[in-house]
């Protein structure tokens, strides 16, 4: 597609449920990032993939958060046993730059998760 696509756009979960958020990056983009954005705050880094390799997961807040990109394109962020503090917008971004190079990131519209 023309841009980064994320689904679902909105997700309401009951506390304790598992959720899966999908990201379809721009075709051919090597790098894929997940960010978490709380209301009124800037995006906070969660994890980074270069192709299918997860090179940095230092931002994942707990072991309830898991991300994968098995074929180096589509990525899924999974949150197990959701808690109210997980309520946020989850942003996916992709970039043609790889390795240590920082280039322009292309963001999706985000998935807004509300945990009741």
């Amino acid at each position, binding site marked *: 597609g023309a841009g*980064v696509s994320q689904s679902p756009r909105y997700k309401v979960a009951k506390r304790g449920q598992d959720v899966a958020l999908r990201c379809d990056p721009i075709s051919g983009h090597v*790098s894929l*990032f997940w*960010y978490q954005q709380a209301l009124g*705050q*800037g*995006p*906070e*880094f969660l994890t*980074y993939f*270069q192709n299918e390799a997860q*090179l*940095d997961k230092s931002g994942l807040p707990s072991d309830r958060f898991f991300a994968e990109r098995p074929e180096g394109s589509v990525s899924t962020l999974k949150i197990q046993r959701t808690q109210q503090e997980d309520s946020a917008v989850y*942003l996916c*971004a992709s*970039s043609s*730059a*790889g*390795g*240590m*190079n*920082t*280039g*322009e*990131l*292309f*963001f*999706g*519209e*985000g998935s807004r998760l509300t945990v009741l």
Partner: protein
Amino acid sequence: SQQGEEDPQALSIQEGENATMNCSYKTSINNLQWYRQNSGRGLVHLILIRSNEREKHSGRLRVTLDTSKKSSSLLITASRAADTASYFCATDGTWGKLIFGQGTELSVKP
């Protein structure tokens, strides 16, 4: 944790006026980027300035970078109502990730 701090947190101006937003950061950088986010949407890249550059222009946008003071500014000239959005600075971290500031919420009144 977040690297940058934007100032002011919120800015309200009239259409046609200039808007200036400032960003300070803590560690050395290779480049700094500015992004815009409309309410409920994703972030859109505006401009990238490298650490060896002092000023960069793109249309109505002017970005300055002072690495000695670890600060950057974004100037939007002749603002329009459509410029209403949140603006974020971002510095480069390991593995190409960006570290974002808290953002400046700009409101341009027609």
